[in-house]
């Protein structure tokens, strides 16, 4: 196994090539820029939250295939979810990246997001996969910006 098998699976390559919800939002209720100062990647997360529900979510920015695909799949995963459900997904995703969640044994709601499991073998890329998720939580917490450092 190598990077092209672990990291660059077809689903990730597809989201990198055709990112979903890749657009700015005119009137978001929440927004948060995320930066990875080590590599220069940046992503803006836009949310439209009505009541407890994330009605719409989008992103824009620049980054590697892992960060772009992760952003894209994050937006698909949390759209229509409640804020509490999105936070739960974040903590599961984070735990998976940190190697603290064995997705094969413990029940979880990650679904196809488990495709990012291989990233944990490449320590320098964990932040790429986590950037959009941290920015999502940053937006929900009304932070001005988040940084992976």
């Amino acid at each position, binding site marked *: 196994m190598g*990077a092209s098998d672990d990291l*660059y699976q077809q689903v990730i390559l597809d989201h990198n090539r055709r990112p979903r919800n890749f657009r700015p939002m005119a009137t978001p209720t929440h927004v948060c820029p995320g930066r990875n100062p080590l590599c*220069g990647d940046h992503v803006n997360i836009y949310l439209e939250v009505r009541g407890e529900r994330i009605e719409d979510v989008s992103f824009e920015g620049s*980054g*590697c295939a*892992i960060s772009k695909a992760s952003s894209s799949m994050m937006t698909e995963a949390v759209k229509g979810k409640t804020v509490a459900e999105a936070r739960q997904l974040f903590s599961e995703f984070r735990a998976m990246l940190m190697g603290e969640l064995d997705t094969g044994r413990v029940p979880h709601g990650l679904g196809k997001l488990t495709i990012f499991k291989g990233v944990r073998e490449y320590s320098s890329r964990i932040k790429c996969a986590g950037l959009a998720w941290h920015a999502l939580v940053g937006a929900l917490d009304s932070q001005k910006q988040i940084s992976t450092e």
Partner: protein
Amino acid sequence: MSFDALTLRQRFPVLSRRVRGKEFVYLDNAATTHKPDVVIEALRRFYAEEYATVHRGVYFLSEQATHAYEQVRVKAARFLGAARPEEIVFVRGTTEALNLVAYSWGGTFLKRGDTVLVSAMEHHSNIVPWQLVCERSGARLEVIPMSDRGELMMEEFERQLTSSVKIVAVTQLSNALGTLNPVREICALARRAGAVSVVDGAQGAPHLAVDVREMGCDFYACSGHKMYGPSGIGLLYGRHELLEKMPPWQGGGDMIDSVRFEKTEYAAPPRRFEAGTPAIAPVIGLGATLDFLASFDRVAAEAHERQLLEETEKRLRAVQGLRIIGTARRKAGAVSFVMENAHPHDIAAVADEEGVALRAGHHCAQPVMARFGVPATARASFAIYNTVADVEALVAALHKVNRIFS
């Protein structure tokens, strides 16, 4: 003296290891270089047989260590073409050398209304120390612009060189673009305008034979670890009459003549700038490094690296969707590039899978990335031990990048 890259390569043990099941191809030399057997052995022998503190022991080993330590200063002075060993200050690396000059010279002589000129292609280590001292002194930082090729705009530089300019700080060789700057001309113009010149030689010293007096600079900084030496040791050259006027920047043992609670007298340069127990073993290792650098024909090595860079650029241009960032007419050591379909991190990750170590990122030169409108680049950088086989491995990896991402 001769030069043969393949023979020299045998002297670097780590280069014969395998990485991810592939032959190890190391092309991140601008970040740091590997170490030859003689340097590794010098460190081992020093620790195993000769280690002691310097400058204070009256016992045999300490006297021997002090002598060996100071002999490296003599060698370093010769290596850089300094007039005398006292013009060489041992520092941790280029970053510390530049901070020392900014803090001590800049902190003492810069006033409100003065200008510090740096170039648009500087590494953060030749920007941030000047910003810090400008904040404290009220001096202004101005930037010598560069062209779309990545060459400094010399006419603009001459216009910027007004009487308010007190310091001109430029890199000899850009780590992000591979541009060779006309430092001799820059230093001459700076001196004529009454400004002090500071040359960042972190990338220059590993690739070019340096003669600071011929260059005409007032200060020159370089790092041991980028020229086959140990990490944690670097050199600051400063013209003696300037060093003499500069106050210490760190206080402690070894940098004093006498200490009383009422008043302390500082030692003369260079010891004034070397507070505390120094990096003794790395200095000894650096001595072995300088001997190593003197053991082969450096002009031939320069030619070898130049050919390798030209060959690499030629082959890179043939890779689909690849664009070279930085097309200066005089280049050395490194080539930066971006690819249409793949982010630099993804390029480096796929290259790594093929055993090829590349750098991806902003190379601690964010203003350079901004100037060229890219978030990051991939960079291949060379050393004496690289060969055309390394270039072939790189190009094969880049074709794989295109297969995956197109």
